[in-house]
């Protein structure tokens, strides 16, 4: 058996980034070893895309005119970011239940690595999810007419939303560890997703509902993405629509500013 003396000279100093990367790699290995889960998730988002695009799409009119598929796609991309919340929360609760979180915490590694590693893995999976929806959308006739810089900004804003929701997922996963809580979130993301402008323009909704949908943070991202991709926004103007890109930058910032400290606190409370 190797003794500590044999091992010690080989040891690297604790380094949060290296440790985060190792934890991220663990998730990437999951994809390789058990691709069924991620593939199912991707197929599910494609199915939603086809369902809305063709099943409901014919009956939905975009205010201000325009092709529904091109209206829908930025909404679907935003929805994928929202749904990412579930996988973050699920991954956190699963690791806590299995004791993996505690093993990490009993090791001489930086405490931020556990959370940063989770972020890395989830952001990587979101990039992949976006890419698949992008391809699927283009195949069914999504038209991108925005400039390259605008398109890049749109993708960045989508991932910025995902980054903000990461902290919501981490907070919820640390704070509510039961399987019931995860199931509740899996249900609750649906009304949050639908009470927005992702599928239907708020203009067509009853007044109060339209207001809720318009102020829904994810609506800001969808509108900004629509503008930047050069797609119909379905909006007749207004302060929110006029500042869509700003709002898409601000909302996730606010969410991050609230939930990142909450996550850090929930993490510290594991010690309580």
């Amino acid at each position: 058996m190797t003794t500590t003396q044999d091992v010690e000279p080989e040891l690297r100093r604790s380094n949060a980034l290296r440790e985060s990367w190792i934890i991220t790699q663990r998730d990437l290995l999951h994809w390789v070893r058990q691709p069924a889960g991620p593939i199912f998730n991707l197929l599910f988002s494609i199915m939603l895309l086809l369902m809305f695009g063709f099943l409901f799409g014919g009956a939905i009119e975009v205010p201000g005119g325009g092709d529904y598929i091109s209206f829908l796609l930025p909404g679907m991309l935003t929805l994928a970011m929202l749904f990412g919340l579930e996988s973050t929360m699920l991954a956190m609760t699963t690791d806590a239940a299995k004791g993996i979180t505690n093993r990490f915490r009993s090791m001489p590694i930086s405490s931020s690595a556990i959370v940063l590693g989770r972020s890395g893995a989830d952001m990587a999976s979101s990039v992949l999810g976006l890419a698949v929806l992008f391809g699927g959308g283009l195949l069914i006739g999504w038209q991108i007419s925005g400039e390259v810089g605008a398109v890049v900004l749109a993708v960045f804003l989508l991932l910025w939303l995902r980054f903000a929701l990461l902290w919501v997922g981490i907070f919820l996963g640390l704070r509510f560890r039961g399987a019931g809580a995860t199931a509740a979130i899996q249900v609750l993301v649906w009304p949050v997703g639908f009470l927005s402008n992702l599928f239907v323009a708020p203009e067509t909704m009853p007044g109060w509902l339209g207001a809720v949908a318009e102020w829904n943070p994810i609506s800001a991202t969808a509108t900004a993405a629509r503008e930047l991709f050069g797609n119909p926004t379905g909006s007749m103007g207004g302060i929110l629509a006029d500042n869509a890109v700003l709002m898409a930058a601000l909302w996730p910032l606010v969410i991050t500013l609230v939930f990142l400290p909450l996550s850090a606190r929930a993490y510290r409370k594991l010690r309580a």
Partner: protein
Amino acid sequence: MPTVHSPHQSLTYSLIASGLQKSYGDTHALDGFDLRVAAGSIHGLLGPNGAGKSTAVSALCTLIDVDDGSATVAGLDIRSSGKQVRERIGLVGQAAALDDILGGRQNLVMFGRLFGLRSSAARARADELLHQFGLTDAAERPVSTYSGGMRRRLDIAASLIRTPAVLFLDEPTTGLDPRGRNEVWRAVRQIAESGTTVLLTTQHLDEADQLADRISVMNHGRVIAEGTPKQLKRRLGGGRIEVMLEDGTRLTEAARLLGEALGTTAVVDDYSRTVTLEVPPGGTGLMSVVRVLDGAALTADDIALRRPTLDEVFLALTDMPPAASVADSSPDSADRTAESADNKETP
């Protein structure tokens, strides 16, 4: 000037806890918890469900903050030197802390790299540990396909990547079948031989008896008795002598004679042709039993001195049955055979 060599505490004790307090609302999970574990020994922390064993382990592993009290692990204060403590411990928690999707080797390589090993060193160490724990053949399989015993062994292997000074095992055999349990016991003994101090929590009295050099019996957040398994058994009294007679018709007569000779009452069981006598602490009385039987021309098929089991110690110390005792106590006859093999004294 002669050097005054004062043996520093940390050289003799790998774990010292004094007066640890930890409350969750009204629950005093730790309520003045004291512990001393000699370096290189296996220490059993024995207690029923809810006694505070996991809380004690979590506190010593620096996973939770205690409300009061102090503790050192490998000579380091758990409050002020958390990170250094974590560099010297291994934790095998109550839930197996493994990635089910990854293979056994992938798990060990991941944890090894997190411990600071370079990839190549982590792979080499993983292979070594897989070999040591008999998991080489299963190295590539996802952990979800492992048996309970294999998972536990991998779990233990993962906590040994850096050969810890102190290894914490929180109920390592709970939920394992006897075979898996034996595998884990063998692994624990092997680890202790290599010099690592082991703190093992268990609800299983026979487990503590089998593995531990010393045992702390714990209930309601504090240690209520401490000693070697033998000392703890003695605390309850001398035990019992069981005499199985060849001639079942003379049981009453034998009981009267033996009871008079030892100054205790004898209990007769017709079915097993056995006379049972309580022995006072310290004494054995075996010699007088033999003399009485000889004098009355009674032939014994079997004479056994039965020391109290830890089960009985436990019941006496905690006034409550340990959760595990009902399900786990072996049938009385099997129990007796094992005990008489250990304790029979040749007159």
